[in-house]
């Protein structure tokens, strides 16, 4: 019997002010898999992530984590339900130290099915952060900030990680490191939605791929199938 998806969206619409950005988005993220959400600039990828995280007040449709409907919940409650955002542009708490960034997000006793993380475990994952624990987050390099953004999200004890362009502006070596970490997290049982511009990176990691264009799903399938038919994907993404 296939287990229920970690995260599912059905008929999700979202708005910024009066503009209708997402149209009837349906997708399912299976447990322990990585789903790459691809699309051109302005296709609605970040809007989709923000809608899941509850950051858009005007949204409709059903979003569920496991069996729990989270569509009407506040961002705080969605986070407690096990969905953690690694936002576009990192958005660290800049005037807090590295360690405080982790402490404020700490969820020590989550419900069953959500694994609690300690600061020591985050430092094991990112030794660089331990070296810079007393620094202000605003003083970190781009790569370190990305690690901190991932660490902060993990501290909330998520089941589902929403990663919005984690490789943006990073050097190739750091991109590879981030890729290895995402694989490790999947191996540890986390389910991940990965928004990326960096197509090779996303396809190398993902199990599933969903392509959206002007706020609608235009393509979906197993990553292996799409890797075999790159020309079709390139057409969808406007790469010629």
């Amino acid at each position: 019997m296939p287990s229920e998806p970690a995260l599912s969206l059905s008929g999700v619409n979202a708005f910024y002010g009066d503009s209708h950005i997402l149209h009837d988005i349906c997708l399912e993220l299976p447990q322990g898999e990585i789903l790459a959400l691809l699309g051109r600039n302005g296709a609605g990828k970040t809007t989709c992530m923000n809608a899941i995280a509850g950051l858009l007040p005007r949204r409709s449709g059903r979003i569920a984590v496991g069996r729990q409907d989270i569509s009407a919940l506040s961002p705080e409650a969605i986070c407690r339900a096990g969905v953690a955002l690694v936002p576009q542009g990192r958005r660290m708490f800049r005037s807090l130290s590295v360690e405080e960034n982790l402490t404020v997000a700490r969820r020590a006793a989550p419900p069953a099915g959500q694994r609690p993380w300690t600061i020591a475990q985050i430092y094991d994952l990112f030794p660089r952060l331990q070296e810079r624990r007393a620094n202000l987050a605003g003083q970190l390099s781009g790569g370190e900030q990305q690690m901190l953004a991932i660490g902060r999200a993990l501290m909330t004890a998520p089941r589902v990680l929403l990663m919005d362009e984690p490789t943006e502006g990073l050097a190739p070596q750091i991109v590879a490191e981030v890729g290895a970490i995402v694989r490790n997290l999947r191996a540890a049982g986390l389910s991940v939605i990965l928004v990326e511009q960096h197509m090779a990176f996303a396809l190398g990691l993902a199990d599933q791929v969903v392509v959206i264009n002007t706020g609608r799903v235009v393509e979906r399938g197993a990553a292996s199938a799409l890797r075999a038919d790159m020309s079709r994907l390139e057409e969808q993404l406007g790469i010629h």
Partner: protein
Amino acid sequence: MFWINGLLNSLAFGAILFLLAVGFSLIFGLMRVANLAHGAIFMLGGYIATSMIGFGFLAAVLAAALACAAFGGLVERSLIRRLAGRELAQVLGTLGLAFIIADQCLLVWSGDPIAQPAPALLRGTVEVAGVVFPAYRLALIAIAAIALAAIWLLVERTTLGARIRAAVDDREMARAMGIPVSRLFTTVFCLGAGLAGMGGALAAPVMSVYPGLDAEMLPLALLVVILGGIGSLSGAFVGSLLIGLIYTFGQMLLPDLAYVILFLPMVVVLAARPQGLFGRHMA
């Protein structure tokens, strides 16, 4: 002698201003709400303390602080959060509330100024190196210093404080990380109102309590926050001392120009550093 006394009076007044302004600044920084009822809460604290003086000075101050904290929490839950993100509504709502509080105080405590005796222990003077200081004013300075240390520890060294700072940095991201920002707001509002009430109660022996005290103190709190920077603890402290100095010496030396002198540094700071001496740019 003139200068030393002036300095002491400035510091004592700065101490009162700090208790008033620090809550105003935290509330402004965290919630983006300019709580124009803050001066009225200060006055309310003073009045409550005059009514409770029968139980002793300390009990009167504590009662004023607790009553104002509870009142602040009620105001936040019932009024402020309904006005989220609507600046004009916040200004009018809190100003209206200030009028209502002032009117109720007039009804309960009449229009005559009420003098509050200083506690017996602090009624005398202290002589240091041949200079005589009123003990109560020295105690005020000490209390403000202790309050500064306590608030600093709370904000800089506890998880609650880190969460408050996180919410000041990026409220939306704080919520997305599961931080209960709404509960933090109520907590900070209680804290700010409680400190204002305590400030009013502690100021009563120096300034006494009278109708119009609220409208006199509120602009000073605004000045402190503009000078020091919104949401900044050190800014509130330095700003309070500066305004205490300028206000006291201004009235002693150039009483006709006291208000000009008071607002002049604000103009300079706004021109040179619009975010305030210790402020960061608002996101």
